[in-house]
């Protein structure tokens, strides 16, 4: 099967900044793919090259087998892009925007599909409202609808939940997940790492224009992160055999111990029993994408670094 997206040795420089430095990436049809990376890693530039909004200096990018430069008509028909910035045309209302966008793709009489999109995105009541009068969240939904007017097999969402309230974020993800179930390939960038963790089957992490990790979300978590157990003893201190596992301790007497796998938990418990120690409270800590992100990108706080994603070119 043709790859939904195939990127080979993509380079792009803006003045002194090497935005993309030899990116290779292949995303299969039907995947839910996450593109993560700190501010300035090149995520938006990569999306811009795919969408034809930016020209690469060298290398190639294909969507559904079509080169984004040479076969730009087919490539652009195959992709729907939700841009990061909350852009709109103040002259027109929601339905007009969707009718125009359909027409730009050469689709006439798209009314039924537009009605369906308005329904799914809870915009039906706002169909005849001028774009200027919509709230930020509503404008974001219109952007999603605009990206879908031509039923593209590949949907690219660039920070779609930036500045969006929690309720809309959840609703948006439900909708996108549904699109994925229906067979659309989804590529998203987000700075909410827990979202990427919950949604994406595979993840690429970018740093300074390079892919520093590319794997399934599960493998990334297993490889770069570990499970932990946090426990508090009724009395006494950790036996020497467990001290080497300890990664943190707090003033309340809670110890955080690293586990290589879940079978390790039994070994920890055995050691405690052998030493005659009793556990007062215990909590298992799951692997965390933020930890992977920090390890790979070397950033101090992944949430913080990824939060200021605007103008990352």
């Amino acid at each position, binding site marked *: 099967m043709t790859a939904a997206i195939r990127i080979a040795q993509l380079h792009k420089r803006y003045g002194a900044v090497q935005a993309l430095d030899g990116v290779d990436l292949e995303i299969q049809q039907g995947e839910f793919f996450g593109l993560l990376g700190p501010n300035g890693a090149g995520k938006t530039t990569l999306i811009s090259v795919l969408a034809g909004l930016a020209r690469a200096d060298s290398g190639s990018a294909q969507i559904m087998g079509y080169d984004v430069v040479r076969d730009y*008509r087919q490539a652009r*028909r195959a992709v729907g892009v939700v841009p990061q910035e909350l852009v709109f045309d103040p*002259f027109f209302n929601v339905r007009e925007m969707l009718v125009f966008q359909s*027409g730009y793709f050469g689709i006439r009489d798209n009314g039924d599909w537009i009605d369906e999109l308005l329904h799914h995105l809870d915009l039906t009541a706002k169909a005849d409202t001028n774009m200027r009068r919509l709230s930020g969240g509503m404008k974001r939904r219109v952007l999603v609808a605009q990206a879908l007017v031509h*039923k*593209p097999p590949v949907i690219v969402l660039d920070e779609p939940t930036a500045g969006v309230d929690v309720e809309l974020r959840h609703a948006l993800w*439900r909708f996108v997940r549904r699109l994925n179930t229906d*067979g659309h390939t989804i590529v998203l960038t987000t700075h909410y790492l827990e979202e990427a963790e919950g949604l994406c089957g595979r993840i690429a992490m970018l740093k300074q224009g390079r892919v520093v990790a590319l794997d399934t979300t599960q493998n990334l978590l297993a490889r770069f992160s570990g499970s932990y157990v946090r426990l508090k003893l009724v009395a006494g201190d950790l036996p020497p055999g467990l001290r080497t596992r300890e990664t943190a301790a707090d003033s309340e007497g809670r110890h955080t111990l690293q586990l290589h796998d879940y079978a390790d938990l039994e070994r920890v418990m055995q050691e405690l029993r052998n030493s005659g120690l009793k556990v007062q409270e215990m909590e298992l800590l799951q692997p965390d994408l933020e930890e992977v992100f920090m390890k790979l990108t070397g950033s101090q706080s992944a949430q913080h670094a990824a939060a200021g994603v605007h103008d990352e*070119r």
Partner: protein
Amino acid sequence: MNAERVSGRPLATPGQEAPFDPTRAVSAPSGFPMLLYKEWLRFWKVSVQTVLAPVLTALMYLLVFGYTLQGRLEPLPGIGYTSFLVPGLAMMSVLQNSFANSSSSLMQSKMQGSIVFVLLPPISHREFLAAYVLAAMARGFVVGLAVVIAAVWFVHLEVRHPLWVLAFGLLGSAVMATLGVIAGILSEKIDQISAIQNFVILPLTFLSGVFYSVHSLPATWQFATHFNPMFYMIDGFRYGFFGVSDVGPWISAGFVAVSVAALSLGALWMLASGYKLRH
């Protein structure tokens, strides 16, 4: 959002009723008609500002200059000053509004970021240019026609060569519309467009013979006027009405046609290379 309320009905259909079909993608109709229609609607929706206001301005000129100078000036033999003025004013309106339409539309959508909506679809650079230019020409045409229709209530006007009127109207507005596209692409701020309008377009139109015949000017100014491209547009347009002009209509038409071709090539090169639009 209602994603979970729907049952049994697919949201979208890449693997269902309409799998992505590359042959359909190649033969699908062009986005050009919709872009043209959208550009038309953009000015038509605010026609008080984009059509009525410039018509009123032109009529004010006609009123003030026409009535104060009628009988005192006769730029062309046998033609009253007010009649002489009408074609010049109509053409001036055509030129200024054609430029204003394409330049401001591009500039605004660049500033608001909504330019992405026309950059993301599969619209070729030729279609892109044609849509912006034709919509701008349409605004110029509507304003010019309205000026002439409004003026014939006050002024006797005859049209000797309607085809020349049409030809110069179309060619002139095409030049300015294309120039507007180039200015819209090049400019990064709205001030820059205003500067071009106030310091280039306005002086060139005022000094192109809208209000006078170049033969009434001193020799040096007459000579200098021949370097003003707007002069040929206005002179040729006026020839269509009166059958009299400072320069032969074929020469003027040739000059204007070459300008359209050169500017179009320039604009196409900018669009094809993605200059200032696709970074």
